[in-house]
Structures are given as structure tokens and as C-alpha cells.
């Protein structure tokens, strides 16, 4: 369908997306984390753009980060140093993991772009003091943005942005819900393109496109296929081939616990509160990233309930190599799933090198087994 193709075109070449945005006299702010407040960036009049690695060979980043740093962090630094991100006017680093923390330093010290902000969010989210601090750092971020644009960001600006991003989140949730209800109604690669596109494209365009896709999918009939229902879990899964390979092996993706998936878009920002309070509330209440803490069991309980809610036949962990927070959680998440009798498989992957043949075999074996 032509609306989905627009998303494909966008993710194929983000620099094209960037040039189009620049023609509207908009500046572009990049970030690597789903705890970056897109609403605040948008309310400041900037275009928020999530950064992914272009997966090019690591040459310049070798001079800054050792080989045991994850391919996302090294890859995005490589893109920046080699000029592939020259369309950026600034970047925001919300605090996540140790590697991102140091990337932020290296990035700042190499100072390529006009705007730079660290948003040092709390690592724990389950106390009142963390809530207060979360609000405090978001207010500080707002001030940083205001200094950059030379004017105030009003509550009305923020509320308008919140409403827009809520709409995007709501429609992405709908698409996922339809897919879970009528598995296979949308190809995994399409799903990937839509979600990733929604993180990089002009959001006003996304807002128009998503409802068309939702309406289209709602009308479509369920394809008669006996695919196994799969939930994907991990940090980011920035490869449409993985979705295609899971489908080729007889699976269908019905949900995810990914930073580039439901962790990013599930949960609305309340529209009837003070905007900064409301943004904080969602960050504190949303599905948690393993680099943050709410309880030692939060992620296990969430994954089990996600799998059950989506009647998953199996869970596939896509583990980004050298991603510590996810690697620490894996054994207990697996234990939680095993205890519930939910079959699971872990795949270690690297942005730079993917062995698709071996991957296909492992998916097939797993899906035949469940």
C-alpha cells in the first residue's frame, strides 16, 4: 500500500527526510534513546529524529571507542564523524547506559553540532524523589531548548505536541493490536518500516498517514495461516531481515518488548495535567528499559504478561552484542518465561555483521519446536 511505501522510502535514506524538513526551515535534533522527550523537542520548533547506525564500516570511531562497545554506539559515532549526520543541528543524550554516557562525552568533546544537551534522567523510577528529580531535569531541558530558540516554550506549545505524539502512539498501538488480533495482516518488514519511520519522519506527515493504515488494516480480512505467534524482546531491533526471517520460518510477530517498538510507544501522556508533570508521569510509568530500575521483577513480570496477553507461542530475544543492561536481565527473563512454559530463544546480533543463513536455520528450528 502506498502509505506504507512512504515509510519505506523515509527509512531507506534519512538524509532525504532531513533535506525535506530543512526546506521548511526546521532544525533537526537527534537522539538515540526512547527516553528523549520528542514532545519537548517538537514544541521548541525542532524536528526530533531518532538516530540509528547506518551500519557502515567502523573507521573513524575506532579512534574513540574500543571494539567491545556495542555496534549502535560505535555505529552512530562513525556516522557522525564521517559527516553522514551533518544535517543535524543538535543532539540530546538522555542518561541510559554506561556506553551512551561515554558516547555523550565523546560527542560533546568533538562538538560537531550547534545544540547539545545531556538530560541526566534518574536511573531509578520508583520513588517520590526520583519523580521530583525527573521533573527537575525536564524543566532544565526545557530551559536549554528555550535558550537555543531564544523564546519561551509555553504550556500550550507543549500540550499541542503532547496531543500529536499521543496520536502517533495511539495509532501505532492500534496497528500492533490489529496485528495481534489478526496475525499476519501486516508483514513484519512493514511493521518495522512504520515504527522506524515514525521516529524519523516529519511527524505531521506521520499523523496523517497512520490512521489511513489503521483503517485499511481494520477492513482487511484475516489471512488463513497457521503461523506461530512470536514476541520479540531486546534493546533495538534495527533490521527488517530479522522480521522477514521469522516469518519465513513460520512465525508471525504479535508484539514486542523493544526500545524500537512497544517500549517506545505504549502508554499515553495525560493531557489534563501540567505538561512537564505529564511527560514525567509517562516516563515513570511506561514499560521500563533495563538501564532503569523500578523493581527487581518489573521486566520479568511485564514480559510474561505481554507474552500471555498476545497468546505468544514463543519469545525471541534479540540481544545486541555488548549491551550490558539486557545481558544482565536475560537469565532471569528466561527463567520467568520457562516457569510459565513459554518457549524462548536468544539470538546475539551485531549491527555490523549479520549471518542471515545461520539466523534462518535457528528461527526455523525454534519455530518447528514450539
Amino acid at each position, binding site marked *: 500500500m502506498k502509505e506504507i511505501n512512504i515509510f519505506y522510502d523515509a527509512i531507506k535514506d534519512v538524509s532525504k527526510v532531513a533535506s525535506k524538513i530543512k526546506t521548511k526551515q526546521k532544525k533537526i535534533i537527534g537522539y538515540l534513546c526512547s527516553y528523549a522527550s520528542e514532545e519537548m523537542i517538537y514544541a521548541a520548533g525542532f524536528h526530533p529524529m531518532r538516530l540509528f547506525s547506518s551500519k557502515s564500516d567502523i573507521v573513524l570511531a575506532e579512534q574513540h571507542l574500543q571494539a567491545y562497545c556495542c555496534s549502535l554506539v560505535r555505529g552512530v559515532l562513525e556516522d557522525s564523524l564521517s559527516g553522514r549526520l551533518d544535517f543535524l543541528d543538535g543532539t540530546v543524550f538522555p542518561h541510559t547506559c554506561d556506553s551512551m554516557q561515554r558516547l555523550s*562525552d565523546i560527542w560533546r568533546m568533538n562538538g560537531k553540532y550547534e545544540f547539545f544537551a545531556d538530560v541526566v534522567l534518574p536511573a531509578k523510577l520508583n520513588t517520590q524523589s526520583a519523580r521530583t528529580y525527573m521533573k527537575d531535569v525536564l524543566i532544565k531541558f526545557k530551559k536549554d531548548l528555550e535558550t537555543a530558540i531564544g523564546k519561551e516554550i509555553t504550556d500550550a506549545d507543549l500540550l499541542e505536541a503532547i496531543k500529536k505524539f499521543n496520536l502517533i502512539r495511539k495509532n501505532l498501538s492500534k496497528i500492533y493490536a490489529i496485528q495481534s488480533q489478526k496475525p499476519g495482516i501486516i508483514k513484519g518488514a512493514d511493521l518495522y518500516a512504520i515504527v522506524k519511520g515514525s521516529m524519523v519522519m516529519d511527524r505531521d506527515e506521520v499523523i496523517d498517514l497512520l490512521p489511513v493504515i489503521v483503517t485499511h488494516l481494520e477492513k482487511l480480512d484475516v489471512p488463513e495461516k497457521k503461523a506461530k505467534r512470536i514476541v520479540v524482546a531486546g534493546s533495538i531491533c534495527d533490521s527488517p531481515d530479522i522480521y522477514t526471517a521469522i516469518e519465513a520460518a513460520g512465525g508471525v510477530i504479535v508484539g514486542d518488548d523493544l526500545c524500537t517498538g512497544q517500549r517506545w510507544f505504549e502508554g499515553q501522556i495525560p493531557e489534563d495535567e501540567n505538561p512537564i508533570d505529564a511527560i514525567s508521569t509517562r516516563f515513570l510509568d511506561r514499560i521500563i528499559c533495563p538501564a532503569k530500575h523500578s523493581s527487581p521483577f518489573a521486566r520479568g513480570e511485564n514480559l510474561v504478561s505481554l507474552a500471555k496477553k498476545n497468546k505468544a507461542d514463543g519469545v525471541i530475544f534479540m540481544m545486541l552484542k555488548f549491551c550490558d543492561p539486557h545481558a544482565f536481565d536475560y537469565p532471569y527473563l528466561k527463567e520467568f518465561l520457562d516457569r510459565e512454559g513459554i518457549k524462548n530463544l536468544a539470538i546475539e546480533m551485531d549491527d555490523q555483521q549479520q549471518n542471515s543463513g545461520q539466523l534462518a536455520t535457528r528461527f526455523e528450528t525454534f519455530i518447528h519446536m514450539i
Partner: protein
Amino acid sequence: MSDKPADKRKIKSAKKMRDIMTTYYLDAMTAEQNNKQVAWITSGGPVEPLVAMDIIPIYPENHGAMIGASKMGEDLCIKAEDMGYSSDLCSYARADISCSVVKGGPLGGLPKPDMLICCNNICGTVLKWYEVQARFYKVPLFILDTPVCHTQYSSEIAKYVQTQLDEYIVFLETITKRKFNYEKMAQVGKLAYEAQLLWQKVLNTTAHKPSPMSAFDAFFFLALIVTLRGTQIAVDFYKELLEEMEQRIKDGISMVPNEKYRLLWDNLPVWYRLKWLSKKFSDHNACLVADTYTSAWCGAIKYTDENNFLGSIAQAYTMIYLNIGVDQMADQVLDMIKFYDADGFVMHSNRSCKPYSFGQMDIMKIVREKTNIPVLMIEADMVDPRSFSQSQVETRIDAFMEIIKQRSN
């Protein structure tokens, strides 16, 4: 009494220190029989309130170092990998996690904790590691969240950390079912402050040429400032150690027999190759006079007010070496190079410690630009010997020392 040259160089306080550590671990192992509670705490965490509450602090990281030094790291790391933990994770964490299950290591496992105190000023790894242990031991976990000060200690951070210190006290009162002892806290705070000053003075003695001790000795003597900070024992011990160092300076006793070259070390030690590395450098007449690691336990002392300990430590615990920006870390390295008059800088690129190791290459570049000294980076891991290639490291050290020798001629 022997006065052989090798014996002359031995630091006499080492035996005392071993005895103190043995007593400390014995106390900890028998805590339950003595109706004492045990808290596991991260190496950068505020231990003083525990001492004030008569809770025995246990440091899994110190235990990790012991595991590494006793060359039991590989086996325990493999056991953790069998449990599903990636071999790319911190080897302290891997060794400790599997040790809890198999009761292995030099002590046959650490005493079971009654509570876990995790301060993330050193890394995000401890957050995940302590969650693992909270699930395993089913005990309460307190997290002291110290946001990274990339460029500044902001007012938001100050308020957040200070509030959490209050929450920490409440947490301890709840677990122990006892009122917090503020009077004892004031004493403990003074002792902690004094011990840190003394430790800094001990480290400063190596600015003398030749150096009375090396970083390898500092790695060893560090144990007390970590584990017994806030006690009279630590103060008394470091007083003695300082006296011994000053005496060695007077008597002209150096750690490296013919010290010609002075080096600065970065990152954690390679625990399972301390002796080998020490000999390797010594054979080149080089002494590792200082390091960025052992000074972390006194580096932020300037923020502490000994008379208002609880009210002032928020900044001291938040602004430690690993919790600041890479450019600020580089500034500290440059200061150390100057203070210790180092001829070279040796960086341990430590697979286990991402916040310590990422940014090293930028620091290396800064050091090369701002000083004239050679920099060497060696790839290793603090506990897991599988990431260490002795022949490769040897070749690189030899080449590095060759450059230093040529420069000094």
C-alpha cells in the same frame, strides 16, 4: 632479622594489613552468630551510615578483586556464563553472581546479605548486578542514584542525592528496627574523613624520587580505605603506613631497585597478573608511581565537610572520578602526570569496565597533545584471564619502554 636487599624493600605494614583483613572477613562470616546484620555495598557507596549503625559492610567488588588475585576468576566467570550471563559482562559481577550460587572463591562465598546498598556512581552495571542479588537473596535493595555530572554538579542533582541520603537513613532504620545514631555518625564521619586524608597522603609519598612504593602496593593497601572507612582501625593503619613511607623516603628505600622511569597507570588492576606486571616494569627500571584508580577513594574529599558529614557527602559521592565527564577525567590525569612527574602513561583497556574504558582513547589523545609523554594502551580484563595475552602485552610494554628510554637519553 634479615637485611637482605629484597627484604629491605618489603613494606612491613603489609602483614598487619593482612591480619586486619582476615579479622574483618572472620567478623563478617560470623555476623549471624553475633546477631549482626550484613549489608552488601558497592565500592563507591556511602558506607559510613552502615558503620554508624553497626552493620557489617561487605564489598562484592573487593571480593571480586580477591577472586582475581587468587586466579579463581576464569572458573567462576565460566560458571556464570553457564547460568546464561554473557561473557561480555563485567567479570566482578560474573564471578560474584556465580559465587553466590556455588559458594566458591577464596572464601567459599560471602556471608549472606540482610540488605543491599547500591550506589551507581561507579557504573550502571552495579544496578543490574544488585538486582540479580536482590532476586537471589530475596533481601531489600536500596539504590542511591547519583546522576552523572557530565559538565556540572547541578542544583537538581544536589537536591536529588541529598534527599536520597535521608531516604537511606530511613531505609536503615526500617531494616534494623533501630533509630539512627547521629552521634556515632558524626564520629564515623570524622574518622572516614581522616582516613581519606591519610590515604591521600600515603599516595602522595610516591611523588618522591625514588618512590617508596608503587601502584601495585597501592592496589593492595587500598582494601582498608574501601572496606573499613569510618573506623579507628583504618585511621590507625594508614597513620602507620604513612610513617613507614616517610621513613622509607628518609632511608632512601625505593620499591623499584633502580627507579629511572616513573609511570602512571589508568583503570583497575589486572588482578591475576599483578606480580608479572610489577616485575615486567621493574625489570625496565620503571615504577608505576600512581594510578587513577586507588585515588578514587579520596579524590572527592574536597567536597566533604568533616563537621557536617551527612550534609556534605552528596557532592563527594556524586563527583567521583568515574561519574564525571571524560574531559574532566583527562584534566585529573594531566594533574597526576604533573604531580608525580610521570615519564609515561599506561592505560588498561578493561573489557569489564565500560565507563572506565570508553573515553580512554580521547584521554590518550589529550595527554599526547598536552604533554610530551608516551602513552601505552593494553587490552585486558581485571578478573577474567581469557582476555589477556601475555606475549602481546609483553611485546607492547617492551616497545613502550624502549621509546621512554630513548626519550630520556
